[in-house]
């Protein structure tokens, strides 16, 4: 499924006491049982994957291990054969890299590492920067990464930040053994950088350290993990050697029903439909001259590596570029003259942004407030918001998109990632657009919900909506697009539709000839 080589696994070691053993772990929150009698055993030196849909109890399990939650009575935990009190203490050898990485982006790598591991200081608390610098290089050396340790991490690439977080978590642990917990480490990584991360994880394991690898992305499990534990609705379904499952059976174990990772939504190519959006010679931060025609009712995919402009193009079409851009845009059905892309904002093309937490939802708002944010004017009469109209809009879209909530007044942050995404999509659709742009529509969304999102988008296109979707996940594009344009180095490197739209062709177009390492270090 992936555009990547399989990392050769080291011989599996399974000697001595397990690195971690949990039994009888339950956790009850008001109203929900997040974990029910879960057990987990991680062997010395293995990479153990933990998978499950949103809300399956993965985060609760990790947070309990990290001491944030106290489990219900009855849980037994052993680390390296030594019992410890879950929720009260965390063994020295148990280290965590949480999803948000826990870094201070304004500080550089050296300072971030020192914040965790301690500053090397002399008289009167003066930091010995020279020694600190050497220590930093020493810590980062094993990961073989190019990084200016004096620049703020905000300027580093996501994979560089992840490495700093991993190095920081492992600081001061030289015992061999130990267990590193990686919580969704690839959630913010572009796909082509995932391989780099895997190399880091292998490096950690080479030292004898076990890894508990939490992920949404099933393909990753097969590349990196030795065994996998599947959680569903707070219960451990089973733990299996990865060699004994395939994507389909794993997905089935996660969702409890048959889900096809090779799912293809029912969409029809529309090469003869009228053109609704045209771009001419669009250039920006990464884009180096892109011409594009989008036909009515098609789902046009934009594929490419990070750095090729896939993240830039959707924002540009929606008139929300992060960097200055030049070029022309026109919507032939609405106006025939070419306009500057800088004025695209006035065209009102809605965008489902890539980073849901950052650009998508207003976390402090209720579901209804999030959903209606773009159509407030329509809900008002004589200046006053009509709550009944708001409820009608919310009811309509929650039903149409199948959004699962505890009610329109519940905070959006109480929804699962997939349902939050549906709310953001609903907000865009409520504007009644004829063109919708989506960037990374399935980021942080689990397998079952992904298919729901594919079907949703395919259904909208059958109803006549034109969709432009960019994704670093080829699976997304293959599953729902009628046509895919591949970007490489800011230019269109290929266009695929119908039978020509295959993973193999796409990968070739995206990666070009000199793509073996798939590395892109920013600027």
């Amino acid at each position, binding site marked *: 499924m992936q555009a990547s080589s399989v990392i050769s696994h080291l011989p599996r070691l399974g000697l001595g006491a397990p690195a971690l053993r949990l039994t009888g772990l339950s956790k009850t929150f008001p109203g929900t049982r997040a974990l029910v009698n879960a057990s987990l055993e991680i062997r010395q030196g293995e990479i153990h994957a933990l998978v499950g849909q949103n809300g399956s109890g993965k985060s609760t399990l990790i947070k309990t291990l990290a001491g944030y939650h106290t489990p219900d009575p009855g849980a037994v935990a052993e680390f390296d054969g030594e019992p410890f009190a879950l929720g009260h203490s965390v063994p020295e050898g148990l280290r965590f890299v949480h999803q948000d990485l826990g870094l201070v*982006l*304004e500080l550089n790598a050296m300072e971030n590492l020192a914040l965790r591991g301690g500053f090397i200081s002399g008289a009167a608390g003066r930091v010995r920067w020279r020694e600190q610098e050497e220590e930093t290089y020493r810590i980062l050396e094993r990961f073989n990464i190019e990084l200016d340790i004096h620049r703020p991490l*905000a*300027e*580093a*690439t*996501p994979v560089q930040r992840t490495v700093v977080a991993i190095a920081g978590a492992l600081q001061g642990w030289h015992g061999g053994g130990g267990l590193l917990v990686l919580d969704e480490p690839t959630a913010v990584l*572009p796909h082509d950088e995932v391989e780099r991360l895997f190399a880091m994880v292998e490096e950690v394991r080479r030292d004898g350290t076990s890894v508990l690898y939490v992920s949404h992305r099933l393909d990753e499990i097969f590349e990196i993990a030795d065994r996998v534990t599947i959680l569903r609705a707070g219960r451990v379904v089973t733990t299996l050697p990865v060699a004994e499952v395939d994507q389909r059976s794993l997905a089935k174990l996660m969702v409890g029903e048959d889900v096809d990772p090779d799912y293809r939504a029912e969409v029809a190519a529309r090469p003869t439909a009228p053109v609704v959006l045209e771009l001419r010679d669009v250039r920006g*931060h*990464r884009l180096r001259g892109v011409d594009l025609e989008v036909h009515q009712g098609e789902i046009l995919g934009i594929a*490419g*590596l*990070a*750095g*090729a*402009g*896939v*993240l*830039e193009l959707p*924002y540009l079409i*929606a008139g*929300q570029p*992060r*960097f200055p851009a030049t070029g022309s845009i026109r919507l032939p059905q609405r106006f025939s003259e070419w306009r500057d892309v800088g004025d695209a904002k006035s065209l*009102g093309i*809605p*965008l489902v*942004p890539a980073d849901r937490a*950052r*650009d*998508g*939802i*207003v*976390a*402090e*708002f209720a579901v209804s*407030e999030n959903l209606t*944010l*773009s159509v*407030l*004017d329509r*809900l*008002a009469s004589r*200046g*006053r*918001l009509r709550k009944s109209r708001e409820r009608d809009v919310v*009811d309509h879209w*929650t*039903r149409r998109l199948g*959004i699962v*909530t*505890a*009610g*329109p*007044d519940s*905070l959006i*942050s109480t929804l699962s990632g997939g349902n939050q995404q549906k709310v953001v999509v609903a*907000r865009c659709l409520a*504007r009644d657009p004829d063109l919708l742009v989506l960037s990374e529509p399935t980021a942080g969304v689990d397998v079952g919900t992904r298919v729901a999102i594919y079907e949703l988008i395919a259904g909208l296109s059958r109803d006549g909506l034109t969709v432009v979707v960019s994704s670093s996940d080829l699976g997304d594009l293959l599953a729902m697009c009628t046509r895919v344009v591949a970007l490489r180095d800011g230019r269109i490197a290929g266009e695929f539709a119908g039978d020509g739209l295959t993973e193999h062709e796409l990968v070739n177009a995206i990666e070009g000839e000199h793509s073996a390492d798939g590395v892109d270090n*920013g600027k």
Partner: protein
Amino acid sequence: MRGRPSMAARVRHGLSFNTIGAVYVLIAIIVVFSIWVPSTFPTIATVKQVLNSNAITALAALAITIPLATRTFDLSFAYTITLSGVVTAHFLTDGTPLALAVLLGLAVGVVIGVVNATVVVAMRIDSFIATLATGSLIQALITMATNDTPIVNVHLQGGFAKIGQTNIGGITLPVFYALIVALALWFVLEHTATGRRFYATGFNPDAARLAGVRVDRLRFISLIVSGSLSGATGIVLASTIGSGDPTAGTAYLLPGFAAAFLGATQLKHGRFNAFGTIIAVLLLGTGVVGLGLANAPQWAANMFVGVVLIASLAVTGIQRRSTGATPWRKQLSFARLRRSATAG
């Protein structure tokens, strides 16, 4: 999908400590002082005193509610109060007709609002620092206009004095002004599209912008609102004290923010809102008046305000952590982190 919560559930929510904790604290304070000073505290006179002596504080706190809703600070509002009062007094002293003098005072507020908005929104300077700077500029103007001596003149009596000193059944007009402003802000924030957009701008400007909200324009407007309301407050204050005092507004800087922040913990969790602010003003005002009647030492009032503020923000902070909502410190960080420029 489930429907609306039941009436009973809504009433329970509306009366919970979580929603109107300050009201319960206020009741507790009233009980305590009624026992402590039974002869003077539980009287109509005390009620009137609390209302009359806190009307200006309420106006000041309401003035900054809208910018705060968009997470924009207006630290210059206290100086605006002073300047508009001083300017109005200055023109009245020169014999300018009352209506014109008042208009000029209001104009001061609007102009300051535009300047603040330009510095914060157009020049993209963090509002906390920017309005600190404009506050300093306003202070310079105040000194220029008054030489740091209060403007006292016979023209400040008569018609002008009526603006702030007229009372209806022992309750002065500023109390009614505060109520009217509170109602207006409540309507805007709760019942208009603009109000919803103010909150969206404050909570997540990036998401709001992508959703089509004109974030910059709203922040611009919010600062003009605070400038204008502060200007109006300054005129009322000058009328109440009967002079153009070059330090009159400064005293409201901390109480104004205290009431606005305490108010944001009430009624609408984490949202700066008009009636939450009013409840906060009443809570703090009642405590201060009660301490005065009980002959508590001079320092007791300030200590009371400080303790109540920290306690209320701490309690809400704890509740929010346990419910998993965004903690205060994250919501109120003065400068939103500039996100890294890593777009592909």
